[in-house]
């Protein structure tokens, strides 16, 4: 059996409600994992002898505005013993209430989560080191969000401040 299928079977056996969707695109498998189950799924993927996803390659967040849930966090895993890549994708409704940190499983996670928080503003539960990494400490906003303009924004004066503000997209669904 292909490792792609073994992964799905193992997760479904251990945590029946954890997997929301399995998608394949260009020979890459993506598992949509429920936010609350992420950490235990990662623990299983890392420690199970037939999987051994021991290498956390990357964590990267994606902003799907205007869709909701708006944010997605990708965990790019790699198994050195089995030479297999896998992507976990966690959908996040409220960026302040993001997935739990996986720093206890892979030490590099703290550092990767810091980047995600700085540029996309997704807060990882339990990561106490989240701080401005690339941007100055007094910076407002998170530039990789789709509602963060790349120039050309309307100038807000005191008389039309509220009017323009109301037109701007917001981080969470009201």
């Amino acid at each position: 059996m292909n490792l792609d299928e073994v992964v799905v079977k193992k997760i479904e056996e251990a945590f029946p409600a954890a997997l929301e969707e399995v998608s394949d695109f260009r020979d890459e498998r993506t598992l949509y994992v429920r936010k609350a189950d992420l950490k235990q799924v990662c623990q299983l993927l890392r420690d199970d002898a037939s999987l051994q996803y021991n290498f956390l390659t990357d964590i990267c967040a994606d902003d799907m505005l205007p869709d909701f849930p708006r944010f997605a966090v990708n965990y790019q895993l790699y198994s050195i013993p089995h030479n297999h890549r896998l992507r976990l994708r966690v959908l996040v409704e409220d960026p302040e209430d993001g997935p739990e940190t996986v720093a206890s499983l892979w030490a590099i996670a703290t550092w990767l989560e810091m980047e995600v928080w700085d540029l996309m503003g997704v807060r990882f539960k339990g990561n106490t080191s989240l701080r401005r990494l690339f941007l100055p400490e007094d910076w407002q906003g998170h530039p990789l969000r789709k509602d963060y303009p790349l120039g050309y924004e309307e100038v807000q004066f005191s008389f039309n401040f509220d009017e323009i503000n109301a037109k701007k997209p917001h981080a969470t669904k009201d």
Partner: protein
Amino acid sequence: MTLSAGGDAIQELTLEELRNKVGTGMEIEDAEEHMLLSMGPQHPSTHGVLRLLVELDGETVVNLAPDIGFLHTGIEKNMEAKTYTKALVMTDRMDYLSPMSNNLGYILAIEKLLGVEATPRAQVIRVILTELQRVASHLVWLGTSALDLAAMSVFLYCFREREYILDLFEMVAGQRMMVSYFRPGGLWRDVPEEFVPAVRQFLDFMPAKIADYEALLKNNPIFLGRTKGVGVISAEDAISWGLTGGSLRGSGVNYDVRKATPYCGYEDYDFDVPLETDGDVYARYLVRMEEMRQSLRIIEQALNKLPDGPVQIADRKIVPPPRSELGHSMEAVIHHFKLWTEGFSAPAGFVYQAIESPRGEFGVYLRGDGGPKPARVHFRAPSYVNLAALPRMAKNLFVADVVAIIGSIDIVLGEIDR
């Protein structure tokens, strides 16, 4: 005991806050005599603008926090506002010591998203150029890291040979460094006639030069004393900290993207992945020196099998038509116009493409939304990840050893900050 954290607003930083900043979860014993040292950002041995906050007990490093972001230019954000092809030039400027590798990673991600593959000739030329780039990048690493350890002459010789490689790049791309030579569906144009003989000449003289560098260093007691047993990281730690490239293979983990998940036909080349088990600065030095020789082997095989044929695919929706067709083909004019005004559209979906850059696994996460611009580009920058393990490697060593370790993990700040 406080120190300004930099920036316009002068903020006092306590040791307590410094430990929070590190994010490494290291256990630290409290002591009254610890002092804070700010190293960089304008410091030649930090290889760019990296600032390190070092907590010292006498001359011993207790704790260390990298402070980055001085070169942050918002490349990932800017690329979302450009078409797939136009965004390419930004990848050159990330890791400015290996633009060919950055180009390749990004272009392969686009091609994966589009579902196309470059022509055989283009793939072989891509391999030749990225391996030349690996040698050029390792030459800068060797020169500068030896310079940090007071071996001045190596630096001069390394840059002499690197210049030859940059001349080759100028020959094919018109640029020494910001090449943007790989394009979706192939190359910008075919290599000129004189390219192959010039590369053969390089292959002739380079092995002797590598032996020269080694002769300068292997009997140098200062170099050996400052590299052997310094900055050790175990295989288990190296995996947990996500190290890749020479830093990971110096700790004995056999992971090279070219072997694990081959791209551009790397499975057809015969080469070894050098491994060392000590995990110290010297082991990383040995690995990279051997990597240069293996790159030469790959280039030679590639030259021998370089096929004839086009360097671009024939799909006119992706690759612009040649200039000669514009005079007599209305269709070519339309394609040309569409590609230069709007660009090609990629399907909705997301892909991850990894390549082995000189610094380690360079990964590109690319999401398309069906339009002509990428919806999200994210780079897994090997320097960024490798830097995170620096506090772990430098712990309980002398502050002077930090310089040796920074040299050995081979970081480029342009890629870290993006």
